[in-house]
């Protein structure tokens, strides 16, 4: 029997969301975070994982609330520390697929150190950073990805700091897979997440979203629909981007897979450490 596309979608939701228990959710109507959640469960489905083998770990923020709603092994940790919690879990359960969901503040301000070190270790976690350029949950303070000159409740005269380029940071720090898409390009986002989950090593997907409730209001960017349209208009593929003249590039959001490289994964390497240590014992040396 051929299942119609729409029916299939509803089945996916049935299977992966904590449907009857946990809705309605906490997010504002029109928020992009739910789209990222949809993209994640579709990716998990596409990869063919069972709910039991997936863990979703999050930090604190609007983005951090996601694990409540998905029927995986879920843990909502402390602000900024999700990757460190996930590192411990992955070390003892290397067979699990561990997806770490973070906001831009969570991943890059308070959790910035954990982010670069998880990438440096190349431990097999999938980091999904929902970048809405602002601290959403606490009401619109500037974050490490707030554009220079933009306004925030704590930048009432404009932001004088530079935003972190998340993907370049991940690449430089040593991640095995790095991609970016937006909540407007939800199918592509889901595809990138599926690739990330399958990648052995530290994988990063920057999901560009928006927060119309805080950032959008403060910067007069309009409703959720208008902010979504902005992602549609400004989100371009790498190919398109490269064809653009220099002056047209400035405000574009480049989508695509930027890094996909094979580097030994941390827990695999640690298995070798165990083998080496046990060999030492077997050889009668106490090391």
């Amino acid at each position, binding site marked *: 029997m051929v299942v119609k596309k729409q029916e299939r979608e509803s089945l996916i939701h049935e299977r992966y969301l904590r449907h009857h228990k946990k809705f309605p959710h906490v997010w504002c109507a029109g928020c992009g975070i739910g789209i990222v959640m949809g993209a994640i469960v579709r990716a998990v489905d596409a990869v063919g994982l069972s709910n039991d083998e997936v863990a979703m770990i999050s930090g604190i923020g609007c983005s951090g609330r996601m694990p409540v709603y998905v029927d995986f092994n*879920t843990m909502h940790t*402390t602000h900024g520390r999700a990757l*460190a*919690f996930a590192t*411990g879990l992955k070390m003892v359960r290397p067979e699990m697929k561990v997806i770490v969901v973070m906001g831009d503040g969570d991943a890059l301000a308070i959790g910035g150190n954990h982010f670069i*070190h998880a990438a440096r270790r190349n431990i097999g976690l999938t980091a999904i950073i929902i970048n809405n350029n602002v601290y959403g949950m606490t009401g619109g303070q500037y974050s490490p990805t707030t554009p220079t000159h933009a306004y925030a409740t704590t930048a009432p005269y404009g932001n004088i700091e530079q935003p972190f380029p998340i993907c370049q940071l991940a690449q430089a720090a040593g991640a095995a897979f790095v991609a970016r898409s937006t909540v407007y390009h939800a199918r592509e986002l889901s595809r990138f997440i599926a690739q990330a989950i399958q990648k052995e090593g530290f994988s990063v997907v920057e999901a560009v979203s928006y927060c119309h409730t805080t950032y959008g209001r403060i910067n007069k960017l309009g409703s959720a629909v208008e902010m979504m349209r902005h992602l549609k208009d400004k989100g371009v593929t790498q190919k398109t981007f490269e064809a653009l003249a220099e002056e047209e590039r400035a405000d574009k959001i480049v989508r695509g897979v930027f890094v996909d490289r094979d580097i030994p994964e941390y827990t695999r390497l*640690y298995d070798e450490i165990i083998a080496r240590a046990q060999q030492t014992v077997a050889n009668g040396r106490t090391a």
Partner: protein
Amino acid sequence: MTGKLMQGDEACAEGAIAAGCRFFAGYPITPATDIAEVLARRLPQVGGKFIQMEDEIASMAAVIGASVGGAKAMTATSGPGFSLMQENIGYAAMAEIPCVVVDVQRAGPSTGLPTKPSQGDVMQSRWGTHGDHPIIVLSPSSVRETFDFTVRAFNMAEKYRTPVILLMDEMIGHMREKVELPSPEAIEVVERVSTSVPPEWYKAYENTPSDVPPMISFGQGYRYHITGLFHDERGFPTQRLDEIDPWIARVFRKIERNLRDILIYEADEIEDAEIVVIAYGATARSARHAVKQARARGYRVGFLRLGTLWPFPEEVVERAAERIHRVIVPEMNLGQLALEVERVVGRRKVMRVGKANGEMVTPQEVLDAIVRGVSAWL
């Protein structure tokens, strides 16, 4: 009998292995680094895992993550790192995740005196993280006891689903003593409470008769939610008072009703004593010495050594001090545990012998206090 010369830090690491610890995450800091170094070598030998994290915040987080994955897990640090761990220690208390945190105390505040002993973290070990929560804190006085207490720390953590803090000090951590470790069969090792109910019945925070809900590791087919928010019996966030209040009551009850198991102490010649010295950790060694000398001079001095500092053994202290005129509390801080003793026995009975400058409290100082204590009331 073949004893082995061993450091307190080494004994801690070996105690952890003996207790079944299979995960350690930490960040180097004197005087706790030796624990990490031993475990970096020893853990993979027994199939366990060691990781040096980017800081102590991450170390504590990784320990919790590993415990959720089913491993007995530990970290070790000293004052500055212990301060950094506090938020996640609170998370472990809130989410009821078993884990052991070793704090080999050095003189503080701040960077203080990295290589000098202290007992300055007594209050931090109790109240370092925000909010009301139960906690268990053990403090060993010898190398052998460090081994034993590490095993017991794991046992209590697993049995009661709680973080347990092993409060060592630089003196004990770096001291070498000849110790005879027990054979593996002679060591009682406790595993966490599990369950075989079908997954759809499983409630990770159920109000069970024992007050300790069974804990199932991630990846075992029981999908549930863990959070640092107040949560209902299934672990989902709640703001309902009829869910929050029973949780608070239960987590305190699970400790309070098991004090017989949790409280470790040693009382010596309390019965006919006129003065009691209450001590713990390295200071207990000086105190014991002083008590012996005082007795040899004819003073009727009792000795109470506390192995468990938190929950504070109120009744034990109360009983010991019942018919006593003076209680002397020597410690390497300016009176942190003395505050608790004063609370229980009354301020006027208590003489503090405190030091926070990185020097040990000497037997002579305790002896002087005993002599002063006796003459003050004669």
